[in-house]
């Protein structure tokens, strides 16, 4: 049965994800290696936090537990980006260079959806439960957040994730024109690293940069503030606005890019 609208999109996405899971599970040694690398990376990310808080009780009002909460959110976002977003959008660059993007464009479904759920780095997704565990542990160290705090944190997290995905899509769009700038993605990764610390440690202009240009702060510090009960309408509004702006902007850029795409065969 062919459904329409969001139902059809979900059906397509489900089918593609199942196929990419099956593909990923074929390369088992790669899978174990990725898992090992990801786990050790995540564990070693605690090193600097441990060092910092062996010298101070709090830094700019952030305790060790709160910083671990930010780190947990950072690990979660990192794992989702590395597991879902990077393998897919990285493959688009390769398709543009090799000309195989044509096959995607010919299919009777939205091209952005198709290129976004083709591949899955299963090994990297192992970090998701680890990150959730870290977040849960950090939350258990303080008074449990209220229902509305959790809801606001979730909204901010989703909005920020949408923004980060859109940022990757924007980076990919540039490769329709400049084939060799795909390592712009590596530059993004290095900026994502800033998300492991709470935003207040940065100077004001960097803080703004990490909110509206590379919105990693929206996914890490903003939800952490919400879970501490320290959110207001301004924070929530800013978080949602960033998500919507990035989603709309990247969708527009993607359509422009496809329109300018001359394909390998023409």
């Amino acid at each position, binding site marked *: 049965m062919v459904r329409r609208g969001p139902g059809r999109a979900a059906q397509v996405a489900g089918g593609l994800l199942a196929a990419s899971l099956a593909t990923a599970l074929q390369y088992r040694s790669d899978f174990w290696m990725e898992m090992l690398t990801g786990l050790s990376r995540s564990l070693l990310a605690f090193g600097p936090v441990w060092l910092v808080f062996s010298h101070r009780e709090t830094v700019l009002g952030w305790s060790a537990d709160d910083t671990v909460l930010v780190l947990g959110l950072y690990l979660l976002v990192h794992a989702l980006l590395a597991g879902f977003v990077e393998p897919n959008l990285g493959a688009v660059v390769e398709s543009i260079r090799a000309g195989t993007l044509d096959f995607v464009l010919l299919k009777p479904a939205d091209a952005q959806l198709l290129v976004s759920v083709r591949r899955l780095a299963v090994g990297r997704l192992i970090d998701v439960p680890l990150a959730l565990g870290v977040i849960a542990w950090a939350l258990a160290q303080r008074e449990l957040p209220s229902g509305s705090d959790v809801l606001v944190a979730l909204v901010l997290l989703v909005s920020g994730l949408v923004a980060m995905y859109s940022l990757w899509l924007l980076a990919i769009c540039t490769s329709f024109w400049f084939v*060799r700038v795909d390592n712009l993605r590596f530059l993004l990764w290095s900026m994502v690293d800033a998300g492991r610390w709470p935003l207040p440690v940065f100077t004001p202009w960097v803080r703004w940069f990490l909110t509206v240009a590379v919105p990693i702060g929206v996914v890490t510090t903003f939800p952490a503030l919400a879970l501490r009960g320290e959110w207001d309408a301004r924070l929530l509004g800013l978080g949602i606005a960033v998500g919507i702006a990035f989603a709309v902007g990247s969708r527009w850029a993607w359509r422009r890019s496809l329109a300018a795409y001359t394909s390998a065969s023409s």
Partner: protein
Amino acid sequence: MSHVLRALPDLMRVGVAGAVAYRAELVIWILTATLPLVMLAMWNAVALDGPVAGFDQDGLARYFVATLVIRQATSVWLVWEMNYEIRSGRLSTKLLRPLHPFWQYATSMLTVLPMRLVVLVPLVAALVWWRPTLLAWPGLTAVLLALASTALAWILTFLVQACFASLAFFLDKTDGLFGVWFGMWALLSGYVAPLATFPDWARPVVELLPFRGMLAVPVELLGGFLSPAEAMTDIALQLLWVGVFAVLTGAVWRRGIARYGAYGA
């Protein structure tokens, strides 16, 4: 040795041509190594209310600027390059030339070094503009020792990566395995925090490991945190680790190359 010296000018010309052709990529690659700046932001906030482990805010800024520079000066990407060339069989071309592949890789990476450092100039200038008080002259002896120590750090980094890369003769891919080593390096080499911030019980162990000789020794010399007299032991330790990895890497390479069976071999 003399045949290496004779081939050197040509190899360097090739290296420079490659770097110039992909200069935009090079700039992006260098900008990806900005983790020290993220760490500086945090440690700077930590030192707001007084020095931490002997580092005040100026000292921390100096430390992480030096980290940024020495990281570029010791940058080697042999693991990724050799992994790819072993898997794709392109290593065979290098094996045909009358010069050990390690020399070919080494010259191509060393020729890009000056360019990598030039790209850093605006970044360092911006940091000095942000905090002019970070500048301090450690003394001529310290600078000369830092140069020698940087050379040793580069050689050690190259040998370690050559060792992991040669393991790719036995395993399919080793860049993942190297990722684990890299994570340990980041924590224990002084890349994310000065080693002085480690607790007292951990420091003697951390200082004996090879990681410190790959980054922290030249950084501390350049920043004036390590006196030339103290540095002698550290440089001796660097030499020791270079020796250990030279032997180890040589053994892994010889065993591995005997098994190498990519097409063209």
